[in-house]
């Protein structure tokens, strides 16, 4: 596939902390980590999804003015950014593994309409749902 969404970015409060979380705890890999002065283009990738990069960006000047950057940091910390969904084969196993690594879960695995889902946040406040792929869909 050569067309489609390539990068979607998240705002994070600290990029080192974000790498520790997404790589160290969720098992993503760093795809690009390029610094240019204070600016750092940082993307990570799910090991099973080579066509997609998740950007971990700092809301910062000069891309954003200082006041806007502050507002974005507040919005992220309030958990007001849009929903994120991570698909997994086994939600309960992933939950146990991630919890042992210190991931902050907001919801334990729950069975809903035959699918299991759990909820967690990254250190910045971005909220994820972790959903077990339904068997009939492969």
């Amino acid at each position, binding site marked *: 596939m050569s067309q489609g969404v390539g990068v979607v970015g998240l705002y994070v*409060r600290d990029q080192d902390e974000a790498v520790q979380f997404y790589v160290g705890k969720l098992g993503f890999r760093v795809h690009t980590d390029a610094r240019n002065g204070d600016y750092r283009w940082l993307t990570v990738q799910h090991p099973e999804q080579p066509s997609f990069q998740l950007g971990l960006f700092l809301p910062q000047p000069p891309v954003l003015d200082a006041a806007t950057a*502050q*507002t974005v*940091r*507040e919005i*992220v*910390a*309030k*958990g007001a950014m849009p*929903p994120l*969904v991570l698909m997994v084969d086994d939600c309960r196993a992933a939950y146990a593994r991630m919890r042992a690594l210190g991931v*902050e879960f*907001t*919801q*334990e695995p729950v069975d*809903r*309409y035959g699918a299991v*889902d759990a*909820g967690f*946040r990254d250190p*910045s*406040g971005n909220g994820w*749902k972790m*959903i077990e792929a339904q068997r009939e869909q492969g």
Partner: protein
Amino acid sequence: MSQDPELLRRLLRAKDRMDGASHEAWPVMRLARVSGVSQAHFARSFKEAFGVPPHRYLLTRRIERATALLRDTDLPITEIAFETGWNSQGTFGRTFRDITGENPQALRAREKATPHEPELVPGCYLSAAHRPSLTIAVSEKRRQEAGATKDGSEETEVP
């Protein structure tokens, strides 16, 4: 009004804890402890951050959950009342009606009569979309609906 993101992140943790166990009692003392701030600071900052006082936020989550249980299960209403954190079916029914404008029984009957196709939207987001908006206190809402009686007594809204 700007708030410290680090404080907001800790307030969010308290909000998450209410989300995760809205049937439990969440006195300000308990919430403040989760956020690591004083009780007075917590109540003020929470409202500033999330637009409603913490107890009212809790109420909207309970009603949201009760609504989902009424719609998606056949649990008796008494059981739904207890499961969502009320001490009596009476208080539950009254608060539910005050907030949503209809009785739990009526909502269940109406929802069961309507076909649903929820599979494409994760359940929790779908549920949040139906969360009641509670921009004024339930006691204030009651007063307004009662035709603005002169009774100014402050009714506590936490059941």
